[in-house]
């Protein structure tokens, strides 16, 4: 919503020291957020009022003339002009060099440059309305028509050299207010409401929106019935005769509406808009001669009933929609938009003015269902107090009478079956002080509330407060609301800032939180991986690449895109996709993610509300990318081994080969087990998955852990120290040939089995190639030998190593290589 600084000043005295920018800041601090201040006058910078003294022919062009224009300077300005309506004695808009305008009304704004047109220097330019953005206020009736200021303003208020913005009443500032921050303040949806707030802010006078009520005494009764009193609280109908519907509204009103981006239409329509923006009450005018039975019924629509609205669209209504109807048909969609058939036209003789009050939720439902949001519906759906409908009626009629003194109200009805109840709140000074932290005095509290229009009865630090009608629409109802009113008007920045009570003990992480912190630190800082975040919804193509059926996933009802309705059951699909995208810039890298996955199964209800949520598990997954499978896989495996080492659970380890994950290669698939139960998997990504993911010329390995399984693992396992060897430790290296399929894991297990002196079996390296027979590989093994009780003898070393070698020969068909 936009608020005009000048319009505000009609109602409230703003201290001279308060600039529009300062006002915006003060409103932001205490009331609602002002996002921007638009300087409208600046748009008309270097534009002046000019008086055309004489017009002469251009020596070199038939269509151009040279105007001698009084622009208030000591010398007349000679201006080349092609305006076909240019004449002597005309008041025109003159742009000087540097003014920003649209050449021929097209394209971007550009600064006017000094120009020589067909050999004649032009000292500025006489403007057409479209060149300076005023086509709505000065509609041109033909091509090349320049602005004739007298069409809008009488000559006696013009003088040469006057800034154009001043002459047109456009030397104004607009405060742009974030509509979202206004949702709870329906009273602020107009200039008067904002003026009331400003007057409270600076404790200055607020002038009444209307000095004197309009006199409707002698009018007959206009038939109005409200059938649905749950949805409509008040309906005022006033039959106006003697108005000339063809007249347009006065220029000052047009200019104000134009500032708020409303195109002037006709006097009656502009007046309803003017009242809307001044006091926030939407109104409507009907051509009364088109109302069948000359009556108004406010009722629910019958299902299937149709109406053509002012936007020329036909809408089919349901029984939840509220309509304004005549004796047979709906003539308006209540609070949202008027009907096309009964609209006021240039030939309307008798006008029915509507000013009403509707129940907000119903308006919102209808507007949302029909996709119709109007200036009217956005206000009604916030809740407008019924008192405003009456003020609006009188304001409209008074303004109309000023412009067309011959009008008369010949019939009238104020149908008000549901009177709003007075809202009262009781609160103590102690309450306000304890909640705000500020030691407000009784007088301060009373003063602030009175400024805002509350009537306050204070006795012994106890306040009985009557909420003004415009704040009683749900906005203010409990003592906490009063705390806010007092504190914000005093200024939050001016409160005494009391520190919160101090806790002497620091809080600590729960084990579950520590696990996550440690895992992140290890993977990033030690394993050299980079942490990423993917969306919880996942692309169908990513799921398919990972071999996951999108149909098995939980779905969003209205997803970000058609192909991303699935919620991720695993972190893997998006990680493969992330790998693919990064392969454009990097050849070798590793990523990890710690995040929630969502399963299509409900967990037991745990909350008092009895909600049944889907299973949501925290997972940890990692992807490693390299040029070859061995590097990619061993890097992922290394990260996994390292991770399991730093997590404080003994029963957490890489298990044996397991069923391949939907995206993995069987022989590379190993389980990760916790207390004997599989909680994760590591594998090389299959060629099929890579192809589907669009990865070529790179290998990808991943692991994924259901970290959630450690959430309730309880006490961490404390490491028990092993005494350092007291006697020397000996290394013994040898190399053996094995079948290429033999696994290191088996070699290690077999070598260590039943050998008391073997403390460890270590991998040294592996060789495949020309030096060894085909189908074989050479593995270099290191035995770590020691006896805890004495120094080993050389014969013990020899015997043990020979036994190990023999066992390997026998059980794994190893062959000793000559070293």
């Amino acid at each position: 919503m936009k608020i005009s600084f000048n319009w505000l000043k009609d109602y409230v005295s703003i201290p001279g020291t308060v600039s529009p920018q300062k006002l915006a800041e003060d409103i932001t601090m205490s009331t609602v957020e002002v996002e921007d201040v638009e300087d409208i006058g600046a748009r008309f910078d270097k534009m002046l009022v000019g008086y055309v003294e004489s017009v002469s022919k251009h020596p070199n062009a038939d269509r151009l003339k040279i105007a001698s224009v009084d622009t208030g300077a000591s010398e007349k300005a000679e201006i080349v002009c092609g305006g076909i309506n240019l004449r002597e004695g005309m008041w025109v808009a003159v742009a000087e060099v540097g003014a920003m305008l649209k050449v021929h009304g097209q394209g971007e704004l550009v600064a006017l440059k000094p120009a020589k047109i067909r050999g004649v220097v032009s000292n500025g330019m006489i403007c057409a309305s479209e060149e300076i953005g005023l086509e709505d206020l000065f509609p041109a009736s033909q091509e090349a028509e320049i602005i004739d200021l007298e069409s809008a303003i009488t000559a006696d208020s013009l003088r040469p050299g006057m800034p154009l913005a001043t002459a047109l009443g456009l030397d104004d500032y607009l405060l742009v207010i974030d509509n979202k921050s206004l949702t709870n303040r329906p009273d602020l949806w107009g200039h008067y409401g904002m003026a009331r707030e400003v007057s409270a802010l600076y404790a200055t006078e607020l002038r009444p929106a209307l000095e004197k009520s309009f006199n409707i005494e002698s009018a007959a009764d206009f038939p109005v019935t409200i059938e649905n009193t749950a949805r409509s609280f008040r309906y005022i109908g006033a039959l106006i005769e003697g108005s000339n519907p063809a007249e347009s509204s006065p220029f000052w009103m047009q200019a104000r509406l134009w500032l708020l981006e409303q195109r002037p239409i006709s006097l009656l329509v502009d007046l309803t808009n003017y009242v809307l923006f001044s006091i926030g009450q939407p109104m409507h005018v009907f051509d009364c001669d088109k109302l069948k039975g000359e009556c108004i019924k406010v009722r629910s629509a019958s299902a299937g009933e149709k109406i053509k609205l002012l936007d020329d669209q036909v809408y089919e209504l349901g029984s939840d929609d509220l309509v304004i109807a005549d004796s047979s048909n709906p003539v308006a969609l209540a609070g949202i938009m008027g009907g096309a058939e009964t609209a006021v036209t240039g030939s309307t003789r008798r006008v029915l003015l509507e000013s009403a009050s509707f129940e907000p939720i119903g308006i919102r439902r209808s507007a949302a269902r029909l996709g119709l949001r109007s200036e009217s519906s956005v206000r009604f759906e916030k809740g407008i107090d019924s008192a405003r409908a009456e003020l609006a009626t009188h304001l409209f009629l008074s303004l109309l009478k000023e412009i067309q003194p011959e009008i008369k109200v010949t019939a009238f009805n104020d149908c008000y079956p549901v009177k709003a109840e007075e809202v009262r709140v009781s609160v103590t000074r102690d309450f306000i002080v304890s909640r705000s932290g500020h030691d407000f005095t009784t007088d301060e509290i009373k003063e602030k509330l009175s400024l805002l229009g509350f009537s306050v009865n204070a006795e012994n630090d106890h306040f009985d407060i009557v909420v003004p009608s415009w704040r009683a629409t749900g906005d203010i109802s409990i003592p906490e609301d009063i705390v806010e009113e007092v504190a914000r008007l005093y200024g939050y920045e001016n409160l005494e800032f009391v520190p919160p009570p101090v806790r002497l003990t620091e809080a600590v992480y729960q084990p579950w939180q520590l696990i996550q912190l440690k895992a992140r630190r290890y993977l990033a800082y030690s394993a050299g991986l980079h942490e990423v975040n993917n969306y919880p919804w996942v692309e169908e193509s990513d799921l398919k690449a990972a071999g996951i059926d999108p149909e098995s996933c939980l779905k969003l009802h209205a997803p970000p895109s058609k192909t991303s309705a699935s919620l991720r059951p695993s972190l893997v699909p998006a990680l493969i996709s992330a790998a693919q995208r990064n392969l454009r810039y990097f050849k070798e890298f590793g990523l990890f993610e710690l995040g929630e996955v969502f399963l299509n199964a409900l967990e037991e209800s745990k909350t008092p509300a009895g909600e049944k949520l889907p299973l949501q598990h925290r997972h940890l997954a990692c992807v490693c990318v390299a040029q070859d499978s061995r590097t990619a896989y061993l890097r992922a495996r290394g990260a996994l081994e390292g991770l399991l080492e730093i997590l404080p659970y003994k029963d957490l380890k890489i298990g044996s080969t397991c069923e391949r994950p939907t995206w993995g290669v069987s022989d590379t698939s190993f389980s990760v087990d916790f207390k004997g139960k599989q909680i994760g998997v590591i594998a090389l990504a299959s060629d099929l998955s890579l192809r589907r993911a669009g990865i070529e010329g790179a290998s990808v390995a991943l692991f994924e852990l259901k970290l959630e399984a450690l959430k309730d693992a309880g006490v961490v396992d404390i490491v028990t120290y092993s005494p350092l060897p007291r006697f020397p430790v000996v290394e013994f290296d040898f190399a053996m040939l094995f079948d290429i399929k033999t696994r290191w894991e088996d070699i290690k297990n077999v070598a260590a089995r039943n050998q008391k002196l073997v403390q460890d079996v270590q991998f040294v390296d592996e060789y495949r190639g020309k030096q060894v027979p085909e189908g074989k590989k050479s593995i270099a093994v290191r035995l770590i030998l020691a006896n805890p009780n004495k120094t080993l003898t050389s014969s013990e070393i020899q015997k043990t190593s020979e036994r190990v070698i023999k066992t390997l020969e026998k059980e794994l068909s190893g062959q000793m290589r000559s070293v």
Partner: protein
Amino acid sequence: MAASGEKPLDFDPTLPGTAPRAGTLHPITQLMYELNNAFLSLGFEVYEGPEISSEAYAFDSLNFPADHPARDSMDTYWLEGAQDKRGAERLCLRPHLTGASVRYMQEHKPPFRFVYPGRVYRSESTDASHERAFFQYEALIVDQAVPFSSGRVLIDAILERTFGRKVKTRMRAGFFPFVEPGFEIDMQCLVCEGKGCSICKQVGWLEMMPGGPPHPNVFRAGGIDPEKWQGFYINIGLDRIVMMRHAIDDIRLFHSCDLRFLKQFPGVV
């Protein structure tokens, strides 16, 4: 040139070093842990709630009117099958963290203070400053005498600790259904020191921290007597602070998984 008595070098000391390099934590994770450290030192526990929640916790218990626009599918990501259901059976990706605070209140007895960081979701169109998934960090303190103006003192202390210097803030009026009174704490732009720049959209201030005392209806939903207890929420938008801290101009980078972006934040937590 070798000094006298030294052997000529047989390697190039300007070659890149060979020790393994660290990877990176996501810049938002880094800020989250920094805030955790600051809050833990002031006695705040760390808590978390589920990402898929029901309307009962996302809206009903937070004093959102039955017809509040945020309940529309235009604003919130509802799960398939939720359309005809209400309350505990109508499921969504949480639109804010505050629902988790009601869960905590139901599970604990006051006085308490805790934080609950996490990711939240809103259905909207994205651009350089709007995302559908973003990170928040919320704190709630409930005690016998905690005026809401204490929120300002707490935030100032936390920001000073997190940024390692005094950060200018201002506290102003704000409206959110689940608090009463509502406030908004703005932080002076660290990039331009309040002069106005592209990061703060020329305003000099960034709105980052809404808050206020739990509305009595929210206390009641949490099983806490609003007559006896008071307190306040503070919500910190992590994305925007990280953007300001590192002069990042596109919020969508946080979910891009782009290593060219992520590698720029080697900070250690």
